[in-house]
């Protein structure tokens, strides 16, 4: 994010004040902060899969997320965009409690999955993560065979009764991830030997093998070439028929291509969220407009 270098023009007919970009970066940040205000657009849905209300996340003393309320609907693909450090990945990692692994991270607010509190003391993160899967930015297959990678979660949760059923799940998952034909003869070769795009599809296959309800994707294509990216995007669209998907991306084209709704984050706040078409064609918030038109970010 290069705010200090970017001329930022804020539309005056909106309810925000004008931003004057003559000060230092921190001044600019303060001023931007003031202009964000309430989330605009359509943050809340009826009959949503995930309901988040008044989420605040802190890393030690630093607040990474400020009072975000957002719903993610059933079988929808929600894209989260925004400049680096805006808190979109942090927000995503709250949804399957991956932030638990960071000792200084503190999460406040209510996170409901099908009406159940994710952060309830009785909620077992193991069960939660089997319902809310995650695909990471960098492909991270286990240093095991392709087969064992996909079978790992299935074995872990005891989802297959016997070897034949396991074989079937592995094949089905690889097929749905669009990888089976490429690797069917090499199932027992190491997953780390695949290309980057194949590795990422292997990670997706591994995630869907345990049949989660929600899949979180944290910039899944940022390490991949355009062809591999296109394959993954196609896959996301197919998967949305069955799963609810939340995807963090730095590519606005990707957000426009794959998502139903788009949320724009800025400085730890949710600025705007709306149907993808309207976000990209008629953004309501000046910050959103500036971002999607490439004036900063």
């Amino acid at each position, binding site marked *: 994010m290069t705010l200090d270098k970017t001329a930022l023009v804020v539309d005056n007919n909106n309810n925000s004040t004008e931003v004057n970009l003559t000060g230092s970066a921190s001044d600019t940040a303060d001023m931007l902060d003031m202009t964000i205000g309430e989330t605009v657009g359509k943050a809340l849905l009826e009959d949503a899969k995930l309901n988040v209300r008044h989420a605040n996340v802190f890393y030690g003393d630093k607040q990474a997320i400020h009072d975000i309320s957002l719903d993610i609907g059933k079988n929808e693909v929600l894209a989260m965009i925004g400049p680096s450090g805006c808190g979109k990945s942090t927000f995503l990692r709250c949804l399957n409690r991956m932030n638990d692994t960071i000792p200084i991270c503190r999460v406040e607010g209510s996170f409901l999955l099908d009406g159940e509190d994710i952060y309830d003391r009785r909620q077992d993160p193991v*069960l939660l993560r*089997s319902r809310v*899967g*995650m695909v990471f930015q960098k492909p*991270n297959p286990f240093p095991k065979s392709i087969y064992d990678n996909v079978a790992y979660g299935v074995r872990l949760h005891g989802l297959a009764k016997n070897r034949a059923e396991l074989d079937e799940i592995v094949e089905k998952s690889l097929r749905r991830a669009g990888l089976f034909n490429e690797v069917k003869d090499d199932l027992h070769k190491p997953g780390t030997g695949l290309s980057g795009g194949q590795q990422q599809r292997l990670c997706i296959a591994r*995630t869907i093998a345990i049949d989660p309800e929600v899949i979180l994707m944290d910039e899944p294509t940022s390490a991949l070439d355009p062809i591999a990216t296109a394959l993954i995007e196609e896959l996301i669209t197919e998967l949305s028929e069955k799963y609810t998907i939340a995807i963090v991306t730095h590519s606005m084209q990707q957000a426009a291509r794959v998502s139903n709704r788009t949320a724009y984050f800025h400085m730890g706040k949710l600025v705007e969220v709306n149907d993808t078409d309207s976000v990209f064609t008629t953004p309501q918030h000046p910050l959103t407009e500036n971002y999607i038109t490439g004036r900063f970010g």
Partner: protein
Amino acid sequence: MNHTEKIQHSLKKRHAREKRFRLYGLLSVSISILFLLSLLGDIGFKGMPAFWQTKVKLDIHLDPERLGLGPNPDQDDLFQANYQRLIADTLTRMFPDAKTRQQRRALKNLVSKSAAYELRDAVIANPQLLGQTRPFWFLAKDDVDVYMKGRIDRNLPESQRRIKDYQLAWIDTLKSQGRLKQGFNTTFFTNSDSREPEQAGIRGAFTGSMLTMLVTLSLAFPIGVLAALYLEEFAPQNNRWVDLIEININNLAAVPSIVFGLLGLAVFIGFFGVPRSAPLAGGLVLTLMTLPTIIITSRAAIKAVPNSIREAALALGASKTQVAFGHVLPLSLPGILTGTIIGMAQALGETAPLLLIGMVAFVADVPHSIFDPSTALPVQIYLWADSPERAFVERTSAAIIVLLLFLMAMNALAVFMRKKFENKW
């Protein structure tokens, strides 16, 4: 001067510096190799002869009368008979020129004292030998052996060498009759420590070391690895107690080993009553000494496992324990094994703490369990290095060779295991 010239000017300096640095590196590598080679060469030169041993052939007339045996001797009689006398008789017959007391004693000392036991064992095994005259190969006394290996210069004045002129004459006679031969020194590997150099071997010390290592490995490996795993994967971070433990583990690694020996003496032997001089006590003390090494290297290996693997497993719903044992431990095992072998090699060569817990005692038996009194290879080396006999000097070096070979074998095993685990995926 324009830009390019400036860069070219500085480039010359940089290249010179690089060359100089490479030269320094090469120089230090050569010096260390030189030191290593001279060390190994010296040990090899001194120690190799110890793997050969001179034997003397004597034709012994197994006269029951001289042995003081009746017509039908039983086992006890055979066991207690004076075989030494037969050997003395034989030698006196061969060399009647030995007149004085001193010369007669010197004559008896041509062969090892073990000759009488060998003779006894032969007779007990086969009593039919009584009354016959048979040739036997006996171990030569250490002085004869050292002379045969050319380590005593016969041109020196008589007063300056351990072998007198008349002894030299006997040895020459034996040699000319083909009664002296050099063979592989099996005694060195089958016997334990002895006051007589030609009978001294490393079996007791070797077994003691093995038993000690066994105790150390079976305690230090699981405790060290689990401690490292806990500290890295489960312990709360930024916790004062955890920090304190970490600092203390690092401190323990720097504690002189003799302090661990004192601790072992006070705690294991004094308080818990572990038998003194036993491999159990040695193993416990060396466990204390090895633990910090294993913990520190294991933690480094565990830290090196990329976090993305942990996240991948956690995101699939693995519990912390499943991540630790299913992913982190197998992935860090090569590093952990290397650390363990380094720690074990350290422990194998450790002498000081063993001295304090009594493993320095003279033990002529091979230990059969971790509770038997025993010594260890490095302590045996220390003991022999203290002995004035020339034959012990070469045995010291030979024991060092065995210890080094043992260490090399351990390192080879470490490399092999590392390779094996790495190839698994």
